[in-house]
C-alpha cells in the first residue's frame, strides 16, 4: 500500500488521502475494488459498498475542489468519475461478473455468444408466451406478463447463484463455460426489460 506524498499516511484508495484530503494522481486504470478499497472477489457487501461510495465522494467530488483551481477541479472530476464507475460496476451483479471474467481473460460476449444447451428449451417456451402477449391485448395479458416475469426472475437468480459459486471457488473452471452462463443472465435481463416496456405500453392506467 502506497503512502500519501503530502502527509505520509497510508492510502486506503489510490484516489485520495483519507487523512489529509489530498487528491492523488493515478497512473493507469485501477480496478474497481482498488478504487473503493474493497477485497477483490465475487462477494461484495452492498452496505459497505454504499458507505465507500459516499465516504469517497465526499472527499473527491468537484463541488468541494472548485475553489482550488482548474487543475484540482479536473483531478476531482477524474477521480470522482472513477469512484462512480467502480461503484456502478460492483453494485450491479452482471457488471461485476463481467469485470471478473474480463480480468481472468474469459472471452467477451462478442467472442462467445452461446448459452448452455439445457437453457435453450426454456428460451423457446418463454418466447412463445411473449409472442402471445404481444399479439393480443386482452385481460389475461397482465397475469401472463406477471407470471412470465416471475419465471424469468427465478431463473435469473438461479443462474447468477451458480455463476457466483463458480467465481468464488478456488478453481473457477473453464472461462468459456463461465461466459456462457453469464450470457444466460444477460439474455434474461434483456427479456425482462422488454417485459417492462410491454407492461408500460399495455398499462390500464394509461389514459388513451
Amino acid at each position, binding site marked *: 500500500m502506497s503512502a500519501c506524498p503530502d502527509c505520509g499516511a497510508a492510502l486506503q484508495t489510490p484516489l485520495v488521502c483519507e487523512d489529509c484530503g489530498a487528491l492523488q494522481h493515478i497512473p493507469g486504470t485501477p480496478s474497481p475494488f482498488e478504487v473503493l478499497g474493497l477485497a477483490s472477489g465475487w462477494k461484495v457487501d452492498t452496505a459497505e459498498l454504499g458507505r465507500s461510495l*459516499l465516504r469517497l*465522494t*465526499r472527499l473527491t*467530488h*468537484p*463541488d*468541494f475542489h*472548485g*475553489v482550488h483551481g482548474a487543475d484540482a477541479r479536473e483531478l476531482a*472530476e*477524474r477521480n*470522482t*468519475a*472513477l469512484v*462512480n*464507475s467502480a*461503484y*456502478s460496476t460492483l453494485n450491479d451483479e452482471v457488471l461485476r461478473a463481467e469485470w471478473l471474467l474480463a480480468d481472468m481473460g474469459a472471452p467477451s460476449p462478442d467472442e462467445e455468444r452461446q448459452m448452455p444447451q439445457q437453457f435453450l428449451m426454456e428460451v423457446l417456451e418463454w418466447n412463445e408466451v411473449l409472442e402471445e402477449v404481444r399479439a393480443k391485448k386482452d385481460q389475461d395479458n397482465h397475469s401472463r406478463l406477471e407470471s412470465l416475469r416471475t419465471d424469468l426472475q427465478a431463473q435469473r437468480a438461479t443462474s447468477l447463484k451458480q455463476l457466483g459459486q463458480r467465481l468464488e471457488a478456488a478453481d473457477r473452471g473453464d472461462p468459456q463455460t463461465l461466459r456462457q452462463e453469464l450470457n444466460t443472465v444477460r439474455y434474461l435481463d434483456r427479456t425482462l426489460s422488454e417485459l*417492462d416496456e410491454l407492461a*408500460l405500453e399495455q*398499462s390500464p*392506467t*394509461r*389514459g*388513451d
Partner: protein
Amino acid sequence: MGYIELDVLDSAPRRIVIGIDLGTTNSLAALWEDDRPVILRQEGASGIIPSVINFPPQGAPIVGKQARAQAVVDPQHTLFSVKRLLGRGLADLNNDLQDLPYAITENENGVLEIEMRGRKYTPPELSALILRATCDQASAAFGNAEIASAVITVPAYFDDAQRQATRDAARLAGIEVLRIVNEPTAASLAYGLDQKGEGTVAIYDLGGGTFDVSILSIEGGVFRVLATNGDTQLGGDDFDREIVEMIREDLAGDVSAEELADPAFLQAARLAAEKCKIALSSDPRHEIHLSLPDIGLNWRRRVTREEFEERIAPLVDRTMDCCRRAMADSGVQPSELDEVVLVGGSTRVPLVRARTQEFFGRPPHTELNPDEVVALGAAAQAQVLMGGTRDILLMDVTPLSLGLETVGGAISKLIERNSTVPCSVTEGFTTYVDGQSGIDFNIVQGEREMAADCRSLGRFKLTGLPPMPAGMARVAVCFHIDANGLLTVTAKEETSGVKAEIEVRPSHGLSEEEMESMLQAGFDNASDDFDRRRVADLKAEIGTMLLAVKKNQAAADEKLDPESLKDLTDASARASKACDSDDLDEIRSARDEFEQASLPLAAVLMDHVVKGAIQGKSLDDV
C-alpha cells in the same frame, strides 16, 4: 443622499455568488445569507422577473414586467418562452412554432434565429438578456453588490445541446457559471434544508415549458439522484395553448381565419388563457373576456374546470408516463417513497395535484413556494461551491444515454441514462477498410435503438491515421460528463502514437467563432449596456434610501414638520414607483427629487447624532 448614509452604509458593495432559476415563464435569483437561502427581491417586490423580452423601436431591449406589458400592444416584438428554443433546431419545435407572431429561422449551422428590429438574435443571446436583467435586479436588491458568479439551473431532462446553450447564454451575459444544476435536484436541496427531510423523495417539477421528475435519496446531507425523467417541451404553456385552441374553435364561425391568426388577437388570447388557467386553480369556473376593438370583438365565454381538465388530461398523462419510467429506473416502489414534492407554478393546477397523489399514493408536499424553491436550492449549492459548507453533497445523474453511431445506423452506447456524474467511459473503435486514414463519428443522445431516432449532438472526424490494414487501428474514444452534466469527447489512435485531431461541430449550438463575434457585438453595444448599468445603480441607490427612510420612519414622524414629512413620503413613493421602469431619465429625476426631500430628515438625524456624541454616546447607540 444627504447624511443618512452615515447611519446605514458601512461598507463598499460586496461581491456575491447567487443562484439563478432561469425559467421559461419567470426567472428569479437567490442568495445564501445567515445560514439559509433567501430570494433577492427589492422592497415590496416578489423578485420574480417575467422571462419576456420586448424590442422597442429604439434603444435597448426591455426585459421583465414592462416587456410583458407590451405583449398585446406590440406582439410582433415581444418574445415569450425563449427557453424552449435553447439548443433546438427548427425540426424540434413543431407545436411551438404554430401561431407565433414572428418568424423563427435556422441558420446554416442549425442555430435558430429571430429577427427583431433589423437584427438577428439566437436563443442564447435572448436568454442572455434575461440572465442579465435577473442579475441586475439581484444586484440592486443587495445594495448594488457585484455578482461574482452564479449557479444556474436547467431542467434535469435538458440534453447536452440545451445545457451548452444555457452556458453560452451566461457567457454572453458576462456571468461566470459556477455550476449548472438540475432544477428538481436544486428543489430537493431546498426541501431537504427547509423541512429537514430525509428518506426517498420524488420531485415532480412542472414549469412553464418543461417537465421533470426525479427520484432522490436524501441521507445525512447527501442528495443522491436515483433516476430522472421528463419532457423538455411540456409545461404550463401547453395548458394555455389548449385554452387558446378552445377560444379559437368557439370563435371560428364569427371571426375570420385571418383575424384568428392576427398577432394581437393571439397574444390577447394567450394572456386571457393564462389568466383563465390560474383562476381555475381556485375557482370551479371562470369567464374569459376578450375585448379587441380593432376587429370589433367583445366576447365572453365561461370555462369550467371540468372542461379545462378534459383538455389538459392527455398532457398530464404524459407527465405520468415519465413518472412511471423514473420509478422503474430508480428501482423504488411508490409505497417506499417518503415524500412527494411539487415544484413549478403549473403544479397549482388541481388536476396535476390529484393525479400525482393518485400515482404516488400519498398527498404531495406543498408547503414550499413552488415558484421559489429552485432558486433557493441553487443558492444553497452556490454556497457549497464557494467552499462555505461541506455538509451538503449533490450526486446527480445524466438524464439520457450517450453513444456513437455505428455501421448501419445502430448505436454503441457508452454511457447509460441515470449514470451518476461526473462519469467517464472509454471505448475502442477501429477501421473497416485497408489504409483508412480517418473515422467519422456521430455523437448521439437518447434512448431509441437507431441513431436516426436519437438527437445528434455533433459529429467529429478523427483524421491523420497512418496506413494500416482494416481492423488494426485502435481508436480510444472517451466520453466524459462533468458535474454540470456537460459532455466532452476526446479520441486518440493508440497503436501509431500519431496524435489525431478531432473537431466537434455542435448540431444546434454556437461555434466558438459565433460566440466571439457575439461577445464583440456586446462590446459594440457598450453604451446601451452603460445606460442599463446606470439604471441598475440608480435603482440600487433608491433601494438603499428607501430602506434608510423606513428605518428612521419613527424619527421622521416625530421630528419633521408636516410639510417636509409629506414631501418625503410623496418623493419616496414616486422613487419606489420609478424603479418599475427602466427609463434612465425618469429614474434619475426621481432619485434626485427623493434626495432633496430627504435632506430635512438627514438634518434631524445628524442633529441627533451630534447631540448623542456630545453626551458621550457612540454612533451605534443612536
